[in-house]
């Protein structure tokens, strides 16, 4: 009788799931990269020095992995959390003290901090190796947008526990918006936008109001930030991530000396 592992790998069920034999020889190591959905993001082969850990620091990959960690833990957290002033804080308390697997929020929060750091380190590496130079200019631009989205994801999530740390950090951060030129009611030029002596830009119509949904950080803000944090920004980031990865391939793979 053949070994049990071989029986399983030769079964109809296994073969129907995995479209390739075990990657133990050169041919099948190529086939696996081409026929597996999760692996097909990668090329079949790459420059040896380009993929060296001491060269890439794996920081882009680590950042993407943290994005996945945040997605999974974030979905689980949504099971326990209601974004209303009445419930938000107490749901976090329950999550901490009552719910089993009580480190869910810790994983999510520390993962978020780590993701900000790894994005910076990824950018640092890409700069120091000159990898933004032609033909990869536009992928660097996409990376800058993704950096911005990472910060915004972290910023919108900061409010959700609805504790003192959250509300005041968001207050300090969003106060900037009221000073936006023309669009903030304390910003330069906003007085010029008045019709018949009636100001168009007030504290109930300016950029800060648009961000918060109110004159100050309150119920509407919590709802707005929740939707931005859980749906709008992740969708945008996922789309840009896909293009970012696709462009790596199209622009010639991980950079290496020309």
């Amino acid at each position, binding site marked *: 009788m053949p070994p049990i592992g071989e029986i399983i790998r030769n079964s109809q069920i296994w073969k129907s799931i995995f479209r390739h034999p075990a990657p133990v020889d050169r041919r099948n190591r190529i086939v696996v990269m081409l026929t597996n959905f999760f692996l097909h993001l990668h090329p079949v082969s*790459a420059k040896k020095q380009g993929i060296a850990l001491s060269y890439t620091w794996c920081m882009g990959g680590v950042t993407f992995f943290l994005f996945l960690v945040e997605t999974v833990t974030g979905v689980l957290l949504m099971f326990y959390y209601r974004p209303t*002033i009445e419930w938000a804080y107490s749901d976090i308390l329950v999550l901490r003290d009552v719910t089993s697997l009580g480190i869910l929020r810790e*994983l999510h929060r520390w993962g978020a901090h780590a993701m900000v750091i790894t994005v910076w380190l990824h950018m640092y590496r890409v700069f120091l190796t000159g990898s*933004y130079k*032609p033909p990869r200019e536009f992928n660097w631009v996409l990376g800058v947008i993704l950096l911005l989205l990472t910060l915004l994801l972290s910023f919108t999530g900061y409010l959700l526990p*609805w504790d003192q740390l959250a509300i005041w950090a968001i207050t300090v951060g969003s106060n900037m918006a009221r000073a936006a030129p023309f669009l903030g009611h304390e*910003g330069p*030029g906003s007085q010029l936008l008045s019709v018949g002596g009636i100001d168009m830009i007030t504290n109930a119509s300016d950029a800060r109001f648009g961000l918060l949904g109110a004159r100050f950080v309150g119920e509407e803000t919590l709802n707005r930030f929740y939707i931005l944090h859980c749906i709008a920004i992740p969708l945008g980031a996922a789309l840009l991530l896909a293009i970012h990865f696709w462009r790596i391939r199209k622009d010639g793979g991980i950079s290496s000396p*020309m």
Partner: protein
Amino acid sequence: MHGHLTYDEFLASISGFLCSYYLAVAVMNGLFAVYQWKVNGNQRLAVVWSVVGLVCVIMGGIVSSGDAGMISYVSVPDSIKNMIDAAMMPVTYSLGTLAILFALFITREYWVKPNMAWLGLNLMLIFMGLSIADVDFAAIVMKPDNVPIVGLIFLLAFFTWLATYKAVENDRRIAQGELPLEAIDNEKVLVWPDLVYTELICMVGLTAFLLLWAIVLQAPLEEPASSVKTPNPSKAPWYFLGLQEMLVYYDPWMAGVMLPNMVVAGLMAIPYIDFNKKGNGYYTINERKFAYLTFQFGFLVLWITLIVMGTFLRGPNWNFFGFYETWDAHKVQAMNNVDLSQLFWVDLLHQPLPRPDPADPFLIKTLIIFKREVIGILGLIGYFAILPPLLAMKEKRLFQPLYRRMGLIRYMVMANLFLWMATLPIKMLARWTMDMKYFISIPEYFINF
């Protein structure tokens, strides 16, 4: 740590952590000693690092006692703490960091050697260890949301070392006419297994690390939100503290809106203004010194050190506090900042400041304001419009070759982004030396610069 603890209770609460900290440093040094001995065959260095490890074990033993008298032997003496606190101000902190980083840059060929870098790491770790027995230092470093920033400092130190180590080696090779290391032995290999296994190991390692972090350190949760109880200090999330620090020098429309947008625009513009074809795909410094120094100045000096300062050294009322200083909400700092228009009209010309009458028509008001702020406005126009062409003229060595190769538009974009970045240190210097508040101050239209 929380103000409610006596010093002895505080020591008891951290002695366990501090002991394992020193033991970890000891193990690290032990492993490095073995590496020196077995791999490099350098017995003398192996002995040196073993002794360092042994000293760490002894320090771990001393702190595990939790006794104030014993721990005072392995902490920074009060006299030195007071000296450091007295010397630390925004100006010494900022210029000191800049000087240290610049000195490291100049001497990079020496400190990138593994043993020198290892010494640097040990000094950083021992400084942390010696300082953590201080209540105030522990309070800022061990606050849960601040821990990532401590991690960030060590990670940046490590990766800056790694990149510089490779760049120094490549620069040496290039100077001798050899190829950079990344170009040697660079045939194509299969991604399975050479890359996917690396990724798998990174994923497993990171998962383990995150789980450990999540178990050891609880995520912060303060009192329920209250819109009437304002905490002092009120801080933005840590990654925006560089921007909050800029509020000391700029109005919100600059620090919170214009400059962040300029940072993003400037980052996006990098690939289009860096025309240097060298240094693509390998670590190098000498082949792209201008780009390297500009980026490092923006990232390490202006972004990271301001975040570190905003997180660790800015206390109640955004006052500056030294590493070992208690965050006292009643600390008073004199603020007698003056505007450039004040300096020009009142102090220099001994005339009253031109003031528009609110009843004046718009045009008259604007003209009076223009007259009042004329020095600042002309200075700003000169800075952004006339300085770049001046820098590009023949006798100026630095920018002229750039202009030649970039063409007018790209050169002006590059020069203006560069000058925008330089406004922050200029404003800082003007504040420190002349108590300068605004170069242009038009409160009538919320335009202060």
